[in-house]
């Protein structure tokens, strides 16, 4: 008989090795799936994990694209990890991402066609504020009306999506767009663009912000009393209250920071890689970032790697689709397997597997 026994403290060895084991298990299970689809499993897996980084024809393009894809995921996930550690569940980063993008884009477009260097910083601030305000709705409702922030923040995503559609087809629509939906292209107008900072690296302001956020979160959790309070509130809410942590303040702070970072990610994306406000501008970064946050074990460095790994499976999966015509749903299933194994193996770092009967006490 197999039993699980809770470890007094999570095993560090398992915590470090489970991601590697998970990747290996994914390769085995995914390889079996690809084989049943009639593909060479070794070639498929090599294309997904290896070719984006080292293929002679694709790597020089895909390597920088990894940063472009991972940047917003990391930035949002870092924000979410603060709340998740404190037991505050912001599920609506997608909505905050959208509102940040709309706010930032609207600011930039209000001054069109000015090319003043002050516009982009203003857009960033507007994006931060937009995301923060959208996150304040669930935060204040939780603090003052004791509503459930999971539900409120999630449902506000759908409200944000409706706002996005209305902006794209109405009040932010490109006046020169012949009635088609979509704003002016911010990325192609000096002043509102978020360009690549160093040629050939994929590094734009958003990627830079993501790295800064990783470092800041690391310092916060290691050195700052606030980081300690967040961890304490998550692990022992009663103890936290006795030691003077104000739960309302913590809720507003955690949701505010995650909203601000999601809003900034939206702004960097709309003024850079995406370029414009469109009906379908949001492509699920806010939700994927939740996965990234947990993949990274809510640890800033872990999130950095988790974001890059997610980006790799997207870009490698795209290559596999292209080169082998593996169907897109098979790639999504493969990504799902990776997440499943990573999270399922988490049990090993928190529990000890015992084989045999439980001894009578």
């Amino acid at each position, binding site marked *: 008989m197999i039993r699980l026994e809770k470890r007094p403290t999570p095993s560090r060895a398992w915590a470090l090795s489970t991601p590697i084991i998970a990747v290996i298990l994914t390769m085995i299970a995914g390889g079996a799936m690809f084989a049943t689809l009639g593909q060479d499993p070794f070639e498929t897996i090599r294309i997904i994990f290896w070719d984006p980084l080292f293929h002679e024809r694709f790597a020089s393009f*895909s390597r920088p694209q990894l940063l472009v*894809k991972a940047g917003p995921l990391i930035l949002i996930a870092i924000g979410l990890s603060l709340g998740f550690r404190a037991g505050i569940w912001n599920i609506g980063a997608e909505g905050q991402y959208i509102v940040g993008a709309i706010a930032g884009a609207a600011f930039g477009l209000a001054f069109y066609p000015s090319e003043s260097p002050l516009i982009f910083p203003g857009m960033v601030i507007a994006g931060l504020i937009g995301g923060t305000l959208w996150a304040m709705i669930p935060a204040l409702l939780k603090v003052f009306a004791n509503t459930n922030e999971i539900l409120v923040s999630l449902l506000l995503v759908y409200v944000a999506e409706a706002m996005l559609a209305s902006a794209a087809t109405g009040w932010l629509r490109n006046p020169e767009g012949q009635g088609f939906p979509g704003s002016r292209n911010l990325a192609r107008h000096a002043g509102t663009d978020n360009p690549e900072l160093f040629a050939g690296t994929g590094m734009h302001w958003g990627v830079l912000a993501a790295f800064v956020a990783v470092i800041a979160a690391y310092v916060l959790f290691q050195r700052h009393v606030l980081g300690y309070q967040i961890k304490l509130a998550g692990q022992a809410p009663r103890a936290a209250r006795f030691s003077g942590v104000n739960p309302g303040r913590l809720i507003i702070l955690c949701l505010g920071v995650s909203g601000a970072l999601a809003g900034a990610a939206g702004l960097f994306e709309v003024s850079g890689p995406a370029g414009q406000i469109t009906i379908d501008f949001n492509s699920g970064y806010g939700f994927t970032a939740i996965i990234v946050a947990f993949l990274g074990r809510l640890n800033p460095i872990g999130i950095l790697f988790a974001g890059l790994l997610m980006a790799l499976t997207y870009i490698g999966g795209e290559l596999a689709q292209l080169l082998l015509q593996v169907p897109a749903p098979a790639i999504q299933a493969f990504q799902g397997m990776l997440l499943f194994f990573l999270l399922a193996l988490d049990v090993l770092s928190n529990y000890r597997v015992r084989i045999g009967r439980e001894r009578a006490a």
Partner: protein
Amino acid sequence: MKRTTTLLTGVALATGLAGAAIADSHDPFQVGFIYVGPTGDFGWTYEHDQGRLAVEEAYGDQVETVYLENVPEGADAERAITTMILGGADMIFTTSFGYMEATNAVAAQFPDVLFEHATGYLREHPNVSTYSARFYEGRAVLGHIAGHMTESNTIGYIASFPIPEVIRGINSAYLHARAVNPDVEMRVVWVYTWFDPAVEADAAQALIDAGVDVLMQHTDSTAPQAVAQEAGIISFGQASDMAQFAPAPRVASIIDNWAPYYIERVGQAIEGTWEQADTWDGIGPGMVEIGEMTETIPAEVRESAQAMIDAIAAGEYHPFTGPINRQDGTAWLAEGEVADDGTLAGMDFYVEGITGEIPN
């Protein structure tokens, strides 16, 4: 000022060096397709993929086709298109409006690759063409049938987004329903999605609850068909035939048939006679088709609908022929006047008689 595209320039240079090797590595002409949905959606993307298969059939070993499905519009599209080119594509069809900026941005970096963008208007570089279909011609025929078939004199219309293409379809359907049934009323529900079976089903049910007995849709799933079947009303297939719901509720359909265009353009590209173009084809060249009209429609209505199809195909009849007023009562087209393509392309108003407002 143009966007700083140093990233892609770098790539273009890098691949330029390896360019000769790439050209040698594949003899067949490689044609890529970027799809917004899954090839199995039995709607928009499905029909584009049928076009791709028709290209393969037409040119055999001369061509090789590749595709990427479920490509989100926006940032991911630019990466997907570029990756496809690095993989050796010589010509790329980007089959959704949202790929417009990405298509043009990549086209600037790869002047030797040919681009065909569906339903857009931006052709910033000589290697970019655009193409779309005059769906409003098909909507006119469906409107004609709907006007005859409704007994409650209320037609329901599930609309996706308030963009010119959708508004044109509503206007065209309404005008031709009213022409055969002056008492007809059109109820429009905006669902703000192209494909969401649950939302589309809800919209269909809401319309049926409001007394609609003929249902039209400008969204791509078959969910409204299932709801119509349940309610015992009639409906029309959209984008693809949706023949699995024939003979009722689906009594006819409007089909996007991209195959003739794809075959023609790929042929020109292989021969080296491809030139930039802005194509807007309708029933005549076969880009828009009306699926089989079932026996549920009375024979004389099928005949008059067929006559309309023939007249449109022959260029004898334009669905927007005056007199037509705008919704606010002001004159748009005088007696016998035909709408110009520019106004149609940017249509942002309802015609007289439609109640309700276009959301903004």
